């Protein structure tokens, strides 16, 4: 029974998130119509662009033709900001090498390595790649890319990691393990120090 139980627990999280994405059109409509009744017809005119038949009466002049013009005069970031970021990156590199020297057990080593690498990554992206001052759209692009990458990792690992939960022999390298017990060695397997000797 616990198999079915923790399948359902795992779905709870995903389904709430996905339900919002799927019902976005309906939820969007609902919110807009509710709010527009409360705040008066024109409050959400920008969103409610479509009304059948009635030409949209926009109180102010038609939106300015030029898209929002970024300010011209943004002066390049000062030199010491870059040097500070560079210094931080070097320090973090030393930290990550140091952490690996501590000989933590595997799970923590992976965790700390990923944490430090992400910090270095955000530093480079925010300052060196001018994500900080740039348009919000860039953040959305990087966000969706990372979202898709995580989807790829998590769902594939969902398969790989749960293969032998029900049948022990469905684990990945069973045939290789069995071949190894019976003496025959699969092509790729190299026993320590002996392969070269043979």
């Amino acid at each position, binding site marked *: 029974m616990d*198999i*079915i139980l923790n399948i359902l627990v795992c779905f709870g999280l995903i389904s709430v998130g996905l339900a919002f994405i*799927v*019902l976005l*059109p*309906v939820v969007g*409509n*609902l919110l807009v*119509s509710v709010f527009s009744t409360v705040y008066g017809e024109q409050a959400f005119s920008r969103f409610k662009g*479509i*009304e*059948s*038949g009635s030409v949209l009466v926009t109180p102010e002049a038609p939106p300015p033709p030029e898209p929002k013009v970024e300010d011209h005069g943004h002066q390049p970031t000062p030199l010491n900001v870059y040097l500070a970021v560079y210094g931080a990156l070097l320090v973090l590199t030393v930290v990550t090498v140091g952490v690996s020297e501590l000989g933590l057990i595997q799970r923590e080593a992976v965790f700390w390595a990923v944490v430090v690498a992400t910090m270095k990554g955000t530093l480079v992206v925010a300052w060196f790649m001018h994500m900080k001052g740039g348009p919000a759209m860039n953040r959305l692009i990087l966000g969706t890319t990372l979202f898709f990458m995580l989807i790829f990792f998590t769902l594939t690992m969902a398969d790989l990691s749960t*293969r032998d939960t*029900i*049948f022990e*022999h*469905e*684990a*990945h*390298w*069973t*045939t*290789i393990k069995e071949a190894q017990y019976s003496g*025959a060695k699969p092509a790729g397997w190299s026993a320590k120090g002996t392969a070269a000797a043979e």
Partner: protein
Amino acid sequence: MFDAQFWLPESVNALAGGVDELFIFVLWVTVISLALVLGAMIWFAIRYRAGSGGPRGSMPTHNMALEVTWTLVPTAILGVIFFWGTRDYAKMSIPAGDAMEIRVMGQKWFWNFDYPDYGVRLQATPELDEKNETEGKPVGLVVPVDTSVQLIGSSTDVLHSVFIPAFRLKKDVVPNRYTTTTFVATEPGVYDFFCTEYCGTKHSNMITKVTVLSKPDFDAYMEEAQEAAEGPADGATVFASNGCAGCHQVREGATGGLGPSLWGLAGREEALNTGEKVLADDNYLRESIENPMAKVVAGYDPIMPSFAGRLSEEELTALVVYMKQLGPDAGGAQ
């Protein structure tokens, strides 16, 4: 038109009860929604065609109640189909504790069935199936009726797939690990057994049968198979049961086939694709069986799988002896 017999072969697997009902349920869902949607489409298209006098009035562009209903109703139906499918899938794929284990090994273009409880190996090459059929012996995978059977599949070279339509059962066999399916046959009889994962040239010939026998017949056949296993291995059956005939011709003057013809090979000079010539003596025959890539005959692709570790020493010598008899001077064994 809308009953399971028309769409699906009769179901003989006790575990796959819900499959036919779910298939028919979704078939009805399809037919009803098709009727509704296409009916509405055709009716609107005719009633409101350009120039027709139909009453028009204001054209609604969105209607909250309608949009919410036609989002929630499909969600509900799909939820029902999902849970129904998952419940049946769990029932179909998790074997009972005491299930009888049969190891299915897929190989390029035929199947091997090992019965660890009886120490018997049945091979299902097209040649052996014909021989068994003519002799009235059960063909291919032999299973007892009304006993829970667990198939543990593995493959030796590429992906294959065990598909028995009558049992509603399908599972790929993968080279690097074992995959498991289970069934409980309810009706004695002979059912089709296909390979459904593309595996090369003879993918469509990699088919055999599943013979469901009553318990006493099954036990009798098992004893008979055990005696045959102890008897001296005779080269011809080893040749037939390991699928060699799938690629090599053995009759005089027969050409074609993916591998070179073996007629009159023993004692002859063979030209290799590296250009040199080699005498086809016992060592060459043995080596070509164990490690075919070492010496590839000119004009043939290097696709022969290696039989190292799969043929016992006794079977290997029997095979070499058999091949040496394939020639005009040695009386040509049959």
